[in-house]
């Protein structure tokens, strides 16, 4: 059986890959993709802890389900905001939303 530490290492690496992308990306859609990576890393952690340490309960499982749903909602709203920004400013990089009011 694979030790739980392996899952935790994968989750850590994926999380910080996401953090790296979040810092280094200029594009808003790229930022959003990095956030998805981070959320996935957290999900792996929840599920691995649930499966290995408390296999008879499903708290982490349910929590991951809720995280997936909230991620979907967040992505939908963020993409609407990005499209609005693009229509107003003409491009979708981070620099273009330095000012929020006209």
């Amino acid at each position, binding site marked *: *059986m*694979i*030790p*739980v*530490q*392996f899952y*935790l*290492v*994968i989750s*850590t*690496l*994926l999380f*910080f*890959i*996401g*953090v*790296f*992308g979040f*810092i*280094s*990306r*200029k594009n808003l*859609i*790229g930022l959003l*993709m*990095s956030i*998805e*990576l981070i959320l*996935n890393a957290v*999900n*792996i952690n929840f*599920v691995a802890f649930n*499966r*290995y*340490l408390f*296999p008879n*309960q*499903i*708290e982490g*499982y*349910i929590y*991951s*389900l*809720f995280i*997936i*749903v*909230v*991620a*979907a*909602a*967040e*992505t*939908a*709203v963020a*993409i609407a905001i990005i*499209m*609005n920004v693009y*229509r107003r400013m003409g491009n*979708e*990089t981070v620099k273009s939303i330095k000012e929020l009011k006209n």
Partner: protein
Amino acid sequence: MELITANNIIFALLSVVVLGCGLLSVLTEKLMHAAFYLFLTLVGVAGLYLQMSYDFLAAAQLSVYAGGILMLFIFAIVLVHKIGENSEHVRMGKKVWAGIAAFCGIAVVLCTMFLFGNFSADPSTDQFTETVNMELIGRTLLGTGKHQYLLPFEATGILLLACIIGALVIANKEKEDKE
């Protein structure tokens, strides 16, 4: 203890896919390629869930993430981004700083984990052959007792409704302003 079993090989492949495609998705300059690599990463994560024999979670991951969210991303890229013309050029200094920050984070977390975290897995579960009962998931999501989650479920429903309305309002604002 055998080292090369089918389980371990599949796990190694999945971890390579998840980490490699995640890294490529962050590093690539073209957004469409990034979306494709993100898709592979999400499928790999679903594979990890299957490895722990959490079937329903893997299905939810595939249908919501790889099916829904990624489709949103691709629509946004096609609608917003000028493909091919505007590949982003990130300054090298920013990338270096981001790399240093990420590396420090990885070092801290892994050191903490291996120094202080001695997780002893339940020895009775040698192989994860049994999956979670679907009835149990349903009762947990829609029950009102202890360790049951009806209230968060309803709150999620309200969140989704608010999200739909909010997305519509935000995306339509320009038209109203013109009138």
